[in-house]
């Protein structure tokens, strides 16, 4: 569905993404994880066509991203930004009227916003906002969903309900989601790409990528992994802040 080859993004003299290779299949939930400034959001914005590449290629369904007519590309992508603020005082129904297609009753029910349609978006709670925005983004049933930290600011039940929605969708469609919470990545993602310093450190199933060793290299901080069901919990190891050899190291492993 989406393929990036040696994708490189530079801005203001800094390399934000460095020769990154990423393949997103037609179905499945792919998590992008890594420390702050690793380039996760930049990768997502580049995939959405919002951030031009300085080098390398990005293709969507076999065609270079930049060569898609804008309207057609918009119909194939759903992009959920990290932060969203409407300049006008919209109701949820009005927000949904600005989707690329009218959302189905089933989608509204699935996102649990059918009872919120007459509410002003500005008065919604964090969880309600996230679900309303997701419904707007999914209304035209895009083959590829790109979601930038949709679970941020949500409490634990809402985080898992949102991830369950994304995981259900990922059975039929491609979903790429940026996550800060490694537990969510371990519990819900089919595949995880671990980024650090704009480079891909590892890419594969969560159990092979979210290892103490790789996480220590990515975050420059020792992490202890506690296996649990579902997934695993991650916590700072004793003395975790002490220097880690090879942090953001050049080596890249494809865990498979």
């Amino acid at each position, binding site marked *: 569905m989406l393929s990036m080859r040696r994708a490189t993004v530079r801005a203001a003299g800094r390399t934000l993404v460095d020769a990154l290779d990423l393949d997103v299949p037609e179905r499945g939930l792919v998590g992008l994880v890594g420390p702050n400034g690793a380039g996760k959001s930049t990768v997502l914005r580049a995939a959405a066509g919002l951030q031009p590449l300085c080098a390398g290629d990005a293709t969507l369904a076999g065609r270079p991203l930049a060569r898609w007519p804008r309207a057609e590309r918009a119909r194939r992508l759903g992009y959920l*930004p990290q932060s*969203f603020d409407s300049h*006008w005082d919209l*109701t949820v129904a*009005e927000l949904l*009227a600005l989707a690329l297609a009218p959302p189905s009753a089933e989608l509204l029910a699935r996102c649990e916003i059918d009872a919120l349609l*007459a509410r002003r978006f500005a008065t919604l709670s964090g969880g309600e906002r996230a679900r309303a925005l997701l419904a707007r983004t999914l209304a035209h049933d895009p083959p590829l969903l790109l979601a930038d930290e949709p679970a941020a600011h949500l409490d634990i039940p809402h985080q898992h309900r949102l991830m369950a929605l994304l995981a259900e969708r990922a059975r039929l469609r491609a979903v790429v989601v940026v996550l800060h919470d490694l537990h969510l990545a371990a519990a819900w993602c089919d595949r995880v790409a671990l980024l650090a310093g704009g480079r891909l450190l590892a890419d594969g199933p969560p159990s092979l990528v979210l290892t103490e060793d790789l996480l220590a290299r990515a975050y420059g901080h020792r992490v202890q992994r506690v296996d649990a069901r579902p997934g695993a919990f991650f916590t700072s190891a004793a003395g975790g802040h002490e220097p880690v050899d090879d942090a953001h190291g050049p080596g890249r492993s494809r865990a498979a």
Partner: protein
Amino acid sequence: MRPAPVVRRPLAPALLVLAALVAAVALLAMSAGARWVSPLQWLPMDGSIDAALAWTWRAPRIAAAFFVGACLATSGLIFQGVFRNPLAEPYLLGSAAGAGVGAALALLLPDRVPPALSLPLLAFAGAWAASLVVLAIGRLGGAWSSARLLLAGVAIAAILSALRSLLVMLFGDESTNLRAIVSWQLGGIQTPSTAEAAGFAAILLVLMLAAHRLAFGLDALGLGDEVARTMGIDTSRFVAAAIVVAAMATAFAVAWGGLIGFVGLIVPHVMRWWLGPLHGRLVGACVLGGGALLVLADTVARTAIAPGEIPVGLLTALVGGPFFIALLLLRRAAAAT
């Protein structure tokens, strides 16, 4: 406490109410003036002096006032959408001042080019150029700032007003009707010929269609540049196109009504309050509401001190300023509850 749900008024009844308002205001405007002529006297069109006065003099003026009000409200609606700022309007953004410089040039140099042609063209050029400069300053350094945009608008408007006065001083002599120019600067509806009045309908129709085509893009811009781009909109091209349409609407309004403030600010504001912020629902409402408001203002302007006339621009500013402050306070109160 759970916030109350918002019920948006259905559009069709709202448009009917506005159309009825336009009809009522037009009826009043046909009757009122230096001399009150009751509808029973002017409606028969029997060739009487009263009927002639109403149909020959008042009707075209009413058409022109409606046209100018509709243009101002439409241009205000588009500017507010493009700049994502409910305080944007042609008068505050320098667009009307730009049109004013163009129009003053046309009026001061009537022997070079016939004003009928040069007035709308130069007014458009001025409105468009001023809007582009304000937009460029608002975007300076890449980051969009709404406050900088409005301040730039105020500064550009001040510069252009000074330039216009300078032009009047340099080129205004006995051959030009200075009094007419000054009264036009303060806002005054010109009385059109029948053919010109018919042209208004065509221009308004084109403007409304253009504004309707822009509506979805304006809504999308309100969700932020990035979201708009992921909705398939080429934001730079869209903003450029929207500014051309808004500048055209400003130019027509300035060409026929001089400099009239606050209509382009208040009408979209009230309509958004009443019908919600989706631009597609607001175009027709702004045309009718803006038209009705200016027909009413023009009627008061030519009746209050008859046989003299108050410049309608002074009237809209006198009434519009406090009205806008009241609106702001009401919105603040509504947001606090």
